[in-house]
């Protein structure tokens, strides 16, 4: 665990410290039928969605793709397939700096819950940049912002019960 974490950290740091990637992308890996590498261009071709947030009185309209659409494309079980052992699976979202948060598959599935978790690539019509990263999650129904992870680089699907 420690080595994997520190590996991710070093890789993340290297990405941060080096010149910012020419075409940053999100890796969708782990227990998926189809591993994906998604750039902003790829996301632009998927079904788009928006979420409006208000933070300290400042309103922001994020645009991107629902996270469940991304997982669907990777072949992650959804709807009637999301049962039995799959209900113990989760998505580990990782940021470039090593920050990580977790969502269970069920809480990302519209057939379970209307949760509105967006993988965003623009804010107020402009591509995300700087400390936001090129991609982030926006989780408007969470009360604190801690899982609205910025600088998102990787989504790993993990099966607890094989």
């Amino acid at each position, binding site marked *: 665990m420690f080595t994997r974490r520190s590996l991710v*950290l070093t890789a993340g740091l290297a990405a*941060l*410290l080096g010149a910012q990637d020419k075409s940053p992308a999100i890796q969708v890996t782990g227990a998926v039928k189809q591993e994906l590498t998604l750039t902003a261009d790829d996301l632009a071709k998927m079904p788009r969605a928006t979420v409006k947030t208000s*933070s*300290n*009185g*400042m*309103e*922001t309209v994020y645009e991107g793709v629902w996270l469940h659409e991304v997982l669907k494309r990777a072949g992650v079980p959804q709807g009637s397939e999301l049962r039995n052992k799959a209900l113990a699976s989760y998505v580990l979202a990782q*940021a470039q*700096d*090593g*920050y990580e948060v977790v969502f269970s598959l069920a809480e990302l599935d519209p057939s379970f819950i209307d949760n509105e978790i967006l993988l965003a690539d623009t804010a*107020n019509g*402009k591509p995300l*940049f*700087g*400390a936001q990263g090129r991609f982030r999650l926006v989780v408007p129904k969470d009360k604190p912002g801690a899982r609205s992870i*910025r*600088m998102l680089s990787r989504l790993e699907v993990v099966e607890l019960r094989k």
Partner: protein
Amino acid sequence: MIPRKPVPCWYKRLLYGLALSAGLMPVSIAGDFQWDVPQGFPRPFVPADNPMSAAKVQLGRYLFYDKRISVNGTESCASCHRQELAFTDGRAHAEGATGALHPRSSMSLVNVAYEAYFTWANPALASLEEQALVPMLGGDPVELGLKGREQEFLATLRSDPVYQGLFPSAFPNEANPYSLGNVTKAIAAFERSIVSMRSPYDRYRWGGDPSAISDAAKRGEIIFSSSERGGCFRCHGGWNFNSGVRFEGSEPPRSGRFAGFFNTAVTTYAAPNRGLFEYTHKPEDIGRFRVPSLRNIAVTGPYMHDGSLATLEAVIDHYAAGGRMHDPNKSDLIRPLNLREADKRDLIEFLKSLTDEEMLHDPRWSDPRGETRPGYRSTGSPRR
């Protein structure tokens, strides 16, 4: 209440034109004050009993810079809140009109209208009107030393031709507008007008100008905003770089919950600088101070409530070490950081990008009497 729709410009111009052509002082038009708040930012909270008006802000500006407000005519609010230092004084401990040293360092007044509580750690002080009475009348320490001389001061104002114009236009429907309450209302309105979101960082982050800040500052922004690396944003968060803002239409702060106060283990916290504890008397509140905004931080040193850190370098070293003191109340967000020297420099470049240079010289907030009338000079040379 400020009307959501500002009075149309042509209408105001017409009124002013009429007033001027009739040889009258322009009278206050409630709501004629124009906020200079960029698209996307909220407007500040304004209490219902002290609506903004251009005339009131102007009166407050004269009072803010008037040294006759102090016991011996040596200090005004501006003596400890100097515009060119983002309304701080450059000292570790502010010095009152009679030479008394304040236990704490002066604070910036930029965007002060957005604060929910005032001063370094007083959750009971929730309005600018009330706060203004502290330096005016307070005796521990003496700041302006006006206590006992209030009537004399009001009489001075009443007999001054400048104020004879300003008070009635700021408080148009009052038989006797020369009251201490109106002095504090006008000063508070002036303070609320000091709103600034024009730093290079603002242009970079919200203004669509990718080259407004240096690459070093861009790297610093990432360290600041990364919980794995600097974690600064967890306390200095949002567009005002503090623990939350109060704005037009926001919920009033909930009493008894002091979420925005933290112990950063910067000193040993002896009385009267025990922070929130001075008000709650709970041992776990010793050392908890309000998170100050980091806007214009490059010009507001020395730093912290006691001015104990002279430079931004010292501040970063303090955080990198996870606090300077061993303290059971230290926030668990303060822990040793893995920062290389280059990272520290980047962090400082980022902090420097938060300075609004235009604000430091904006004529709207300068001494209205300028340097032309020596009797009124209020910003002397730096007193370090």
